[in-house]
Structure formats: structure tokens, C-alpha cells
């Protein structure tokens, strides 16, 4: 076995996993606050990446201005989706809400194809090009710098949700909505903010992933990998999102490199199936006890 090759593949996988962790964090924030499983997260990422393409490629802005603009655009999209389409579904069965997000995903794909056509696009390169070596291991620069930017936001998020007023409000809402409401927390605002922050994380990750792998209306399929991550980690666990994100990213890349690209999805879904049978609530998720 070629350990150097394995090391390089693993490193690339771990870096990709860092981005998965960021997306999964966005997913978990939305789930924790609003109990909505967001099947449209991949499409929100895609939408932000196309916005970046429009700002940086079409309008020829500097990528470092286009990136924040695209991320803000993606977060606004999340907030608008919550206000207009998720809020009216409050109290409906989870199945219906999930179907609404699937419908939203379809609408976003259609909109993107409408504006940018169905052809694959390349994002203008904005990350440094010098190859990165960690010890002897080579890492593609786009992946390395993508990982760094992603982790920076990840750390900001973790600190924010641990210490800030907004973070405490979110965690309070997640643990008991009625109690949080009676303590004067504006639960509606928390719902909306959760969507905005969740979409923000997804948008940044979307631009970074698209910068390494290209962009097309099928980009949203990455949402399926994220779904695996959050189920394996536990839908309501931030720690789970981090651990499972890194692990699934690694597994997917290694399976793709050693077995071939067609094995990527089955490999991760196999882990998903095993977890669903052994620990349905995920590695770190809360086991909910149901009462009649």
C-alpha cells in the first residue's frame, strides 16, 4: 500500500470534510431551532455560488467583494424562504414541511437554469495557487484554502452560539419553545435568524466547494451527502455535525479514489444505513422519547 498516496487522499478528504462540517452546521442550526429538515440546503449553496459567479465573473468585481455579497445574498434567500414558505407550514406534519423544502429546491434549480442555463460553469479563481505541502503531503491549494476559510467561519459560529445573546436564545428555543417564549425570547425572530445563519454557512461553503469542483444546476446533489452527515452525527448535535462531516468527507474521498467515483454515494449511504439501524438518532443526537 502506498502510504503517501493514502495520506494525500486522506488529507484532501479531511479538508473536504471540513466544508461538509460547515454545511452540516448550517443544517443543524436550522433543524435545532425550527425542527425543519432542509432538503434545499444544497440548492441554497448552489444559488450562492451562482451569485458569486454573477458578481465576480459577470460584473467583474473583485472576488473578495463578490464573496461576501454572494454569501449575504444566500442568507437573505434563506430568510425569505423561511418567511414566505416555511412559516405558513408551522404545526403541519414534518412530512409536509420536508416536501415544501423539496419543492423549493426544484424552484431554485429552475431559476438558476433560467438565468445561467444548464451548462456547467467555472468560477473565477480567487484562492492562491501555490501548492500546499503538509510535511511531505501535497494538498491542492483550492481545497486547502477553502478549508481554512470554512474553518474560520466554523469557529466564529461555535463561539457565537456558545457565548452570545443570540446563540443562547437559539439554544433556549431549541430545548423548549414554550419556556423560551415565556422568558421573553422572540421565537419568531429566532426561527428567521436560524434560517439566515444556516443559509449563510451553506452559502460560504457553496462558493468554496464550487470553486474547487465547478458549478452546474446539478450541484445541489451535494445536499444528499450533507444529509448523510447530519443523520450520522445526529440531527440536533453540533458536535455530531463536525465529527461526522469530517468523517464522511474523508470516507467519500477515499472510497472515490480507491474504488472509483461510482462508489462514493453507496459507501457513505452504507454508513448511513448502519447508523440508522444501530443508533437511529445519530452518534451524538438526542434520543427523543415519544409519548402518546
Amino acid at each position, binding site marked *: 500500500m502506498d502510504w503517501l498516496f493514502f495520506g494525500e487522499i486522506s488529507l484532501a478528504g479531511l479538508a473536504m470534510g471540513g466544508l461538509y462540517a460547515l454545511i452540516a452546521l448550517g443544517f443543524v442550526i436550522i433543524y435545532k431551532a425550527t425542527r425543519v429538515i432542509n432538503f434545499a440546503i444544497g440548492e441554497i449553496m448552489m444559488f450562492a455560488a451562482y451569485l458569486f459567479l454573477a458578481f465576480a465573473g459577470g460584473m467583474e468585481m473583485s472576488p473578495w467583494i463578490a464573496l461576501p455579497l454572494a454569501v449575504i445574498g444566500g442568507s437573505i434567500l434563506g430568510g425569505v424562504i423561511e418567511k414566505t414558505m416555511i412559516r405558513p407550514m408551522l404545526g403541519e406534519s414534518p412530512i409536509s414541511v420536508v416536501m*415544501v423544502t*423539496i419543492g423549493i429546491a*426544484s*424552484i431554485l434549480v429552475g431559476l438558476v*437554469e433560467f438565468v445561467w442555463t444548464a451548462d456547467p460553469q467555472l468560477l473565477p479563481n480567487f484562492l492562491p495557487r501555490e501548492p500546499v505541502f503538509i510535511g511531505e503531503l501535497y494538498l491542492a491549494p483550492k481545497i486547502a484554502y477553502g478549508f481554512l476559510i470554512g474553518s474560520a467561519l466554523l469557529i466564529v459560529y461555535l463561539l457565537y452560539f456558545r457565548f452570545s445573546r443570540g446563540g443562547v436564545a437559539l439554544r433556549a428555543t431549541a430545548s423548549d419553545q414554550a419556556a423560551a417564549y415565556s422568558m421573553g425570547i422572540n421565537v419568531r425572530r429566532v426561527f428567521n435568524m436560524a434560517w439566515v445563519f444556516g443559509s449563510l454557512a451553506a452559502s460560504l461553503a457553496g462558493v468554496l466547494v464550487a470553486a474547487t469542483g465547478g458549478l452546474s444546476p446539478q450541484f445541489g446533489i451535494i445536499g444528499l451527502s450533507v444529509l448523510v452527515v447530519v443523520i450520522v452525527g445526529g440531527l440536533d448535535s453540533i458536535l455530531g455535525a463536525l465529527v461526522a462531516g469530517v468523517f464522511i468527507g474523508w470516507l467519500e474521498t477515499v472510497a472515490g479514489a480507491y474504488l472509483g467515483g*461510482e462508489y462514493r454515494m453507496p459507501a457513505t449511504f452504507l454508513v*448511513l444505513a448502519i447508523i440508522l439501524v444501530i443508533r*437511529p438518532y445519530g452518534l451524538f443526537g438526542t434520543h427523543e422519547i415519544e409519548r402518546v
Partner: protein
Amino acid sequence: MRIGDAKQSYEADEAIWTSQTQKLWLGFFLLILLVFPFVVDSYLLYLGCLVGIAVISTTGLNILTGFTGLISLGQAGFMGVGAYTVAWLSINTALPFPVTLVLAGLMAAAVGILVGLPSLRVKGLYLAIATLAASVFLHFIFAEWESVTGGMGGLSLEPAHLFGLTFQSDFMMYFIIVPLAVLMVLAARNVFRTRIGRAFIAIRDRDISAEILGINLLRYKLMSFALSSFYAGIAGGLFAYFYRVVTPESFPLSMSIFYLAAVIVGGMGNLLGGILGAAFMTLVPEALKLLTAALTPFYPNAPVFMSPMLEIIFGALIVGFLIFEPHGLAEIWHRIRRFFRLWPFRN
């Protein structure tokens, strides 16, 4: 206004068709179905066959999702199992097509039971994701098990034969698909008059309460999975005979979502809704194609925008129905009927 409707026996109360008028309309509808292939052109005939297949599959998914409350993202995978079974059997054996179709249904039901096994341990959205995993695995098997499924190239099969007839044209296929669709919807209607069907509904309404009432959850959930995938398998088998080519890409995830959308748009837990939803969702893209063709002389770019428009309309239909008309087309239908039934005395 309808009068003289007092029921005097349990049989009358349980009857599917409660009035003479209803039977009359039903007979009229069946007559139209019978005459339809003789009077329409080949395009409408093709659409009729498509709707028939969609009705069977949607009814199957409705049994699982609408009546048992188990959401499934694997319907396309189960249809694929049926289609591949039919294709393999018709290439490698000399079995007549009714036998291959039934075997396709049974094979899909067996896979359905396997996929349903986690349903005792996980439910709701977790179950949806388990079925999603199943459809990923099935797609993988379709694409990679080349000795049986022909890999990415898929399988091509001969038209169905029976009693010296060759079911090659859409016209001939219509007379397999539509009677089968009518039969299978009727069968589903009857299931919900039995203990099994009632158990499904009880599980949907509250599974824990149902278990306390003595319903064996695992058994009935698996039964629902089996029944639903049996329908999917038959629909898949018909799909195989209709297009006579089966590839892994014939059954993408978006197809599972399509059927789920058909159930929702039609009305969850309502067989009439399933029929309406299947027909509606199949015909909307075709209507859009017609519209595009009509617009092309004025806007030469129209065909370019058709596929994105379709995605948007598809999504908007799902979101719109869930927000504004959660009971679907069936509810609209009932509202119209109520209007006529109460006619002079409304308000």
C-alpha cells in the same frame, strides 16, 4: 340536492358506490375509457398509457404514504426492480407477460419488505432517509451488476406476447395498462374496507395508540411496504413493456419525488386524489410542451426556457398545494361536488 340517502344496513353503509347516480357516472367513465383509444390520435393515446402507469404507481405510494403515514423516497427504485425483473425474465425465459408482471410485483414487494425492515426502529423523516439510502443502493446495483442488468446500457426487451397478439403499439398497450390500473385502484379501495387497511390508517393516525390497540406494528408496516412496492413493481413492469428499454437512468431520484408530489397534489390518503394527482402531474409537462410549441413562432427562444420553467412549476405546485390546499385536488373535487349536491340551498 341529493335526497333519499338513509342507509338501512351495514352493507349499504360500507358500499363503495352508494347511489344509482354514482354507478351511472362510473359506467359512463368506463365507457369513455373504452372508447378513448379508438377516437384519439397517437399522442393522446401515448399520454393515456403514461397516465395509467402513473396512476398505478401513485396509488401504491398513496397506500404507503397517504394511508400508513410512512414517507418513502424509494418509489422509483421499486419501479426499477419491477422493470428489471420484467426485462430479465422476458429476455431469459419464455414466460408469458402476465406471469412476468406478477413476478415483477412480487420481486418489488420482497425488496420493499427488506427496505421496510428498519421502519420499526426508525420512523418519519428518518424512514424517508432510509428509503433514500435504499434507492441509492438500488441505483448502484442497476448500474454495476452488469451480468444481470446490462450496466449503464441497460436492457432492451421484446414486446409482450399473449395468445398470438403482439403488444407493440401504444394502442395495444393501452388495453393492458388501463384495465390493470382500474383493477388495481379498485383493489386498493377494497383493502381499506378490511382489517388490514383499517390497521394502516390507525398506524398513520397514531402508531403508538395503534400498537396499544393490538396492531402488530412491524407486521402491518411491512405489509404496507410490500403492498406499495407491489404496485410500484407492476407499474415498473408496464413501464418496461411500454418503452421496451430499461436503464439505470430510467428511475432517478427525481422520479420518486415526482410520485410523492403526485400524492400530495392529489391529496394524501385519498385514492381519488392519487388518480387526479397522477393525471395532473403527468399532463402538466405535456401542456407546457404544447404551450412552448405554440409560442415558438413568436419567441424563438421559448424551447430553451421550457425545461427550467418545468422545474419551477413543479416546485411551485408542491409548495403551493401544501400551503394553500393541503388536501389536494381531491378536496377541490369534493368542493365542486358539494356545490352541485347542495345546489339550490347553499347558504
